[in-house]
């Protein structure tokens, strides 16, 4: 694992309500981590702070690259990505949405096309490449979000409730995509879910956020 993420004493409050309280965890090993907990427990906040999308009130997020501390700059941000629960689709075609991460990195057109088509095939959207992305169903939109993240081959991939707003069939498709990503085994995936069974199906490591704190899951009936 080239990139290692450590969260140290993270605290975060919104309007006086403390969501995370002295939260520490080190994602030392490659694989898939599932971050569980009921709605509103701070899973998404923790994920957004880890993905450098939000600043904590206290504590630190540190990334180690080949054992050395990495600067929290654009180069580091481009080695990770977060798929938001509401994907944030750009008002253009499916292809251009997926190509976005490559375009802003200055990847050449030919390579871009190859990589986008490969990922679209992987998530089962290859036939929709020229369709307006805003016309996709919610399940397809979620898969588009995954494709957009996968195409940039992140070393750490954060997935925030990837199946929260999709039907059963699409949940199965998305879980299958995550399972196939695991088999590829190149990145560390950190996924939040409130569904314990889903966490058990997908993850190598189960974590729980409870009362603002994160810990390895030891009590299966804790929520």
């Amino acid at each position, binding site marked *: 694992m080239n990139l290692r993420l450590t969260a140290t004493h993270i605290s975060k409050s919104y309007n006086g309500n403390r969501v995370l309280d002295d939260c520490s965890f080190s994602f030392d090993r490659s694989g898939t981590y599932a971050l569980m907990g009921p709605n509103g427990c701070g899973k998404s906040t923790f994920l957004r702070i880890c*993905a450098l*999308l939000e600043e904590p009130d206290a504590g630190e997020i540190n990334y180690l690259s080949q054992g050395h501390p990495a600067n929290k700059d*654009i180069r580091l*941000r*481009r080695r990770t*990505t*977060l*798929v*938001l629960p*509401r*994907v*944030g*689709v*750009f*008002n*253009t075609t499916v292809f251009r949405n997926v190509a*976005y*991460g490559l375009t*802003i*990195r200055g990847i050449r057109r030919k390579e871009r096309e190859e990589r986008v088509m490969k990922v679209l095939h992987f998530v089962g959207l290859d036939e929709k490449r020229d369709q*307006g992305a*805003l*016309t996709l169903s919610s399940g397809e*939109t979620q898969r588009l979000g995954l494709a*957009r*993240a996968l195409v*940039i081959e992140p070393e750490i991939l954060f997935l925030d409730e990837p199946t929260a707003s999709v039907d059963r069939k699409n949940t199965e498709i998305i879980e299958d995509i995550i399972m196939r990503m695991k088999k590829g085994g190149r990145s560390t995936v950190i996924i939040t879910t409130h569904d314990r069974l889903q966490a058990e199906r997908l993850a190598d490591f189960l974590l729980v956020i409870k009362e603002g704190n994160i810990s390895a899951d030891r009590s299966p009936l804790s929520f």
Partner: protein
Amino acid sequence: MSSIVEGFGRAFSLILHLDAELLGIILLSLKVSGTALIVATLIGLPLGAFLGFRTLPLKGFIISLLNTFMGLPPVVVGLFIYLLLSRSGPFGFMALLYTPAAMIIAQTILAFPIVSSLSHSAIVAVDPIIKQASMTLGATPFQVSLTIIREARYGIMAGIIAAFGRVMAEVGAILIVGGNIAGFTRVMTTTIALETDKGNFELALALGIILLAISLAINSALHLIQKKGSAGIKR
């Protein structure tokens, strides 16, 4: 009544036989208003974007000012530019008064608040999730801004077209600073005013019909853009 019908008949005949003078007037109108629109967009869009992205101390006041300027009376703008460009004015040495350049300046001033204000509205209306999505995908702050502008493109285009409609139809400002000189600064609206004064209704009507046709084309384009832009609101 019969003179009106007769006038329309002759007007259509003039349009069908489009002579060089009429064509020159139409082309000058399009050139002046088109150039003014390009300049107004080059100034107005970056200003609208800047106001949309940045937190400034007098931001609310500047936006209110722009909104007020959207309704600037063209004659007031014409008078203001006239005073600046007249021989005794601060820019008199440039000898721009009664030239197409002066008309372009006046129309730019009329168009730019519309482009700027409507661009600002379109940019701030973009769902904040777009900014987050582009950030998570590794965009630099500049790339994030470009992405947001691209998402606002239909609203921005609507603003540009609305500004074009305004400058194409205005007469007050260009009449004052252009002087309505035949073959040099005479455009469609000023010709209509002049020919009506002279009682030469055929030419005035012909230009009126052409102006309406252009206006209809602009509004149809606006309608199409808005329809396309509202095709999807789900993210």
